[in-house]
């Protein structure tokens, strides 16, 4: 199978959905012909589909998301790009109070089929305003669906599903994932929401990891294998809906679990997953649930500071060793 980058996989999904459905259009800051998106995901699409459907916007995050909401409830399928996940804060009312609630609050009259694509995550030394992982905030809002693809294959299949989906979707990308390559079939496919993927099978310990942490966990697993520790890696792929069953089944099999996410530990993604495991599989655990996440600090700039904060293979390995005894 051919291998393409996460970035190209996302672009293919956008292109195919725009070809398939004339109501799909893109809007965001510098996504058009002059720049092609800060991370080049939309590069070339304006030339192909025109400036009307690949729409550069002013720096107005609240209006970008609001415009997506208004367009979505009147028959369009907008895909908005927020240049950095940190900047979703500027659109929080439109995301949380408008997009998420417009269906429920109006008694099911409306649907808001919009996607907000945005890159989260650190590791590129751009400090506290451009490096956060805020997925957990959106998990807390009924009405939103939250997608966290870790591979080119998942990114393409899930983005196509997100666009066809009738609910507002927060599509979380990760800056370090864009250049990563992986197998993506030539033929058309979509991936369902709420279905986790076992990225590596194993028997001794389960690692639940998301986004870029999946790749660090895979490397850690290779190291651990040398010591005879067999690691299973579960990638939820979507946080809302969350495939609890696959997580629980893996934990039942291994009896030990480490949850690895790049957000702050307190009330983070790992907290929810840990709670699910505690509620549903406590009796199967042979060791306490272990979480590897960012300490509760803003992301610092200087490379040694940032590397210290964001989980790495070493921390994952240490955590696994703590529960495999």
């Amino acid at each position: 199978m051919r291998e393409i980058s996460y970035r190209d996989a996302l672009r293919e999904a956008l292109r195919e959905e725009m070809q398939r459905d004339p109501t799909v259009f893109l809007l965001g800051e510098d996504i058009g012909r002059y720049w092609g998106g800060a991370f080049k995901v939309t590069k070339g699409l304006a030339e192909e589909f025109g400036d009307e459907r690949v729409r550069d916007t002013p720096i107005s995050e609240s209006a970008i998301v609001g415009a997506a909401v208004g367009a979505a409830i009147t028959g369009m399928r907008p895909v908005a790009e927020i240049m950095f996940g940190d900047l979703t804060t500027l659109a929080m009312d439109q995301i949380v109070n408008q997009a998420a609630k417009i269906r429920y609050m109006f008694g099911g009259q409306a649907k808001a089929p919009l996607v907000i694509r945005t890159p989260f995550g650190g590791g590129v030394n751009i400090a506290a305003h451009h490096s956060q992982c805020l997925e957990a905030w959106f998990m807390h809002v009924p009405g939103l669906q939250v997608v966290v693809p870790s591979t080119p294959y998942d990114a393409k299949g899930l983005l196509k599903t997100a666009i066809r989906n009738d609910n507002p979707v927060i599509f979380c990308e990760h800056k370090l994932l864009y250049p990563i390559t992986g197998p993506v079939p030539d033929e058309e496919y979509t991936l369902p929401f709420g279905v986790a993927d076992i990225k590596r099978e194993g028997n001794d310990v389960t690692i639940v990891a998301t986004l870029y942490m999946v790749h660090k966990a895979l490397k850690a697993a290779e190291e651990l294998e040398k010591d005879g520790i067999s690691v299973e890696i579960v990638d939820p792929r979507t946080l809302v809906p969350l495939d609890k069953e696959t997580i629980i089944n893996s934990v039942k099999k291994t009896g030990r679990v480490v949850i690895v996410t790049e957000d702050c530990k307190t009330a983070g993604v790992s907290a929810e997953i840990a709670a699910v495991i505690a509620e549903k599989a406590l009796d199967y655990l042979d060791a306490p649930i272990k979480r590897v996440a960012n300490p509760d600090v803003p992301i610092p700039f200087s490379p040694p500071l940032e590397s210290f904060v964001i989980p790495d293979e070493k921390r994952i390995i240490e955590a696994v060793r703590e529960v495999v005894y």
Partner: protein
Amino acid sequence: MIPSKEKLLEMYRKMLEIRQFEEKVYELYGQNLVPGTIHLYAGQEAVAVGICANLRRGDYIVSTHRGHGHCIAKGADLKRVMAEILGKKTGYCKGKGGSMHIADFSVGILGATGVVGAGIPIAVGTGLSIKLRGTDQVVACFFGDGASNQGTFHEGINMAAIWKLPVLFVCENNLYAMGTRQSRVMLIEKISERAAAYGIPGVTVDGNDVLAVYEAAREAVERAKRGEGPTLIECKTYRHKGHSRMDPATYRPKGEIEYWLKKDPIPRFKSKLLEMGILTEEEAKWIEGEVSRGIEEAVKFALESPYPEPEEALKEVYV
């Protein structure tokens, strides 16, 4: 341009309908039949009716927390509005929205938002949708003087301006953002002057003169349909009651209410219609009676309707 006789009478009737509806809601609230709070539209009827008289069924409006009047003017069913306000299953939102969140997508009412200024970007997106779909629809976005101090006002109007979207930004300046008088939070008197910052026309009209509002909206709709973009229409008006049901509105200076009651849009329009020979006192009485029967029917429907089943609370979060 004066509308046709039929249209004028319909506008008068709608204004009466809104006034009587709001008076009835006020009364029901006093009898503890309305949960939560209410923000009454009484006094501002000329704005909703003057704007919506220019809209067709397929055109859109985006409403606010003070939205009963907008919805009635756009063609909402009084029964289902009243039922929603009372939290009943037969209400527009099946009891999930209430007074601040009435919507009827079948007649282009895209819903009322409880967050001041939040409807502005949504109206921009609706305008964008119209442009991309290539229809000749327009969208009217209602908001108050308070909302014009929100960031969404700046972001949204600028965006609609650069893309020349078919949006009417209708600022209902009723002098107060809750209890805060306009002069305490902005140094200009005419909010329409802000339009200049976006390179679009801004007009200020007497919001208690339904024909003045109608004319401003007519021009804005024509401009929008010509593809020339949005207009900011500021309607100077006044709410007769406080901000919400529990607000005695003691922050208003002495004599102010009396001054505005003299400018009440409904008697003014009635005098005008009598003067124009379009309406007789007898016809006016007949219309009043008919409107009042319609309100009574709405109240009866709402009161007799069941409350939703509690488990309904868990439905319709997702498609």
